């Protein structure tokens, strides 16, 4: 059992594929549970539940193939590839997901309108992607103001897109 677990978790690629397989099994289970709630077919031999069940079944099967393949492959036979030109920065990746979520919440709860919220977002994203270096920020701040307010004017006045405008602080911007 320990050897099997080591083969599934011992190297980066194995870990990734094991997590993928678990995700697929969980997702397929969810799809099948939802498909089972559908009424039986009344128009055609298949009905609405057949395609989701089929796809979920295939996804589970492929997930199992992934797992079995790694169990059958001894450790260290396929080492993880190393790319010397890049360095992983998971905190930045997390920040780049959190920033847009905060941005959407600000607009959804009408705390800020599109233009000011987008200005803040562009500055935040530029700070994350540019590691908050001074030259990047000097360009990004005016760029953020021009892009956000310019886009807002262009899209609302010429393309008639009803962007969120209400702001808790000012009523409207």
């Amino acid at each position, binding site marked *: 059992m320990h050897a099997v677990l080591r083969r599934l978790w011992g190297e980066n690629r194995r870990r990734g594929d094991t997590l993928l397989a678990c995700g697929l099994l969980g997702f397929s289970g969810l799809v099948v549970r939802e498909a089972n709630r559908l009424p039986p077919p009344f128009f055609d031999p298949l009905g609405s539940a057949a395609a989701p069940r089929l*796809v979920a079944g295939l996804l589970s099967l492929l997930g199992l193939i992934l797992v079995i393949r790694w169990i059958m492959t001894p450790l260290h036979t396929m080492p993880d590839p190393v790319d010397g030109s890049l360095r*992983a920065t998971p905190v930045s990746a997390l920040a780049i997901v959190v920033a847009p979520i905060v941005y959407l919440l600000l607009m959804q709860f009408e705390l800020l309108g599109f233009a000011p919220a987008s200005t803040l977002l562009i500055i935040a994203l530029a700070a994350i992607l540019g590691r908050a270096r001074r030259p990047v920020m000097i360009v990004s701040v005016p760029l953020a103001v021009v892009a956000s307010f310019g886009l807002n004017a262009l899209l609302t006045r010429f393309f008639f897109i009803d962007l969120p405008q209400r702001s808790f602080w000012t009523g409207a911007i």
Partner: protein
Amino acid sequence: MLGELSQAFAFIFQPWPFFWVLLGTALGVFVGAVPGLTGGMLITLVMPLTFFMDSTQALVLLVAMYVGSVSGGLISATLLRMPGTPSSIMTTFDGYPMAQRGKPERALALGIGASLIGGLIAGVFLVLLSPPLSRWAMTFSPWEFFTMVLMAIVLIASISQGSMVKGLIAGFLGMAFAMPGLNESDGQLRLTMGIQDLSAGFNLLPVLLGVFVMSQIIKEAYELHKTPTALDPGRGRVLVKLAEWRRHSVNIVRSGVIGTWIGILPGVGASISSMVAYATAKNFSKTPEKFGSGHDEGIVASEAANNANVGGALIPMITMGIPGSPIDAILLSALILHNLQPGPLLFITNGDFVWALMAAYFVANILMFIIMTLSVRTIARVVVINKAYLLPVIFVFCVVGAFALSNRMYDVWVMIGFGVLGFFLDRVKVPLGPFVIGFVLAEIFEVELRSSLQMSDNGFWGILDRPIAMSFLAVSLAMLVWPFVQQRRLKRQRQLQEAKG
């Protein structure tokens, strides 16, 4: 045919359509040249802005972007040794060494010229093959369409990068995400998990924006690359003499035909075309040992094939509504968003539109040649632009695009969700191309299968009465089984060699 094509050219040379082709090509070249930005990203991003345009002009713009983006990749492949688009990966093998040896102008000129000729070769096939193929496809029953979609998914999974299992996972996962909401066949709500907003399912545009753009932005934040330094593009003329092209004519025509043919195969992208053309050019070359060290033939083969792939991939999209590559899946969704029904009837219901697309394809190739020849030095300076300036603004465009679809925040949340999913899939080496193709084709797959079974007296065995559908099914099965057979053969050969040695 010639009459319709000349009318289409007359339309394209009117001021506004010509402006869109010019703009699309220039933007495509720029985006294609910047590593990390892709044509798929650009087209998805611009799609919401085309809601307000006439459908023909909108698609003309998007096709021009497609042509430009595939060509632009060669600039960074040659000067940075980083392919601007995946399809230019083979160009790095010979383009960069040639530029390093002090001949950057020659490497760029060969690539640009080969891109033009490859593109035009595919254009000829596009014009000649599309009408008869479309007429042939009109004889198809639901069985043929069902098996063709199946073949597309298997084909892209088996030929796309990395493992076939992961390609299939991507395709089926894309199909699974297309299933929630109101089912077209019987009006049944399904897989909504009680969430009201899911009744309409996941809209295509937020999914595309998430998978192609948002995931790329997360990836850029995750992977801190060393800042690339570009080689000087030189000061000489970016042109190659006509006599030299005559020397390369066989290689260029062969690579153009390979690119077109691989493009026609459903779901197979331009990177495979350039790989196959490069390998073939090497096999036929009198100097194969020079490949990889800055050889003319390598650049010509790779660039002629990847541009020809664009024209080839448009053929199944226009004639059958089956995407020839992931970008064609996006174009297909643009057709749907503009209320144009893709499929064999498109030629009959919107013939002018189809011919205009073909004319735009030719004009975009010629404009690409002019733009790249004249401005390659300017573009070369911009390709090393800090993405901290570009990506945040691109993200705001994505938000607007997703929101503008139906003026609701739900679509923006969907975009972010699919962005995160796309990033994770990319991390575990699940290709995103088949995911998008699966998402786009899921509805056709299910509708055609259910129609086939409704029409059939023998259930699934009804397929035996349809020889074309059977051949599509046979190809799908062969593609599924072939990698395993090949693996066994290689293993046996290795064992034999070990026994001998």
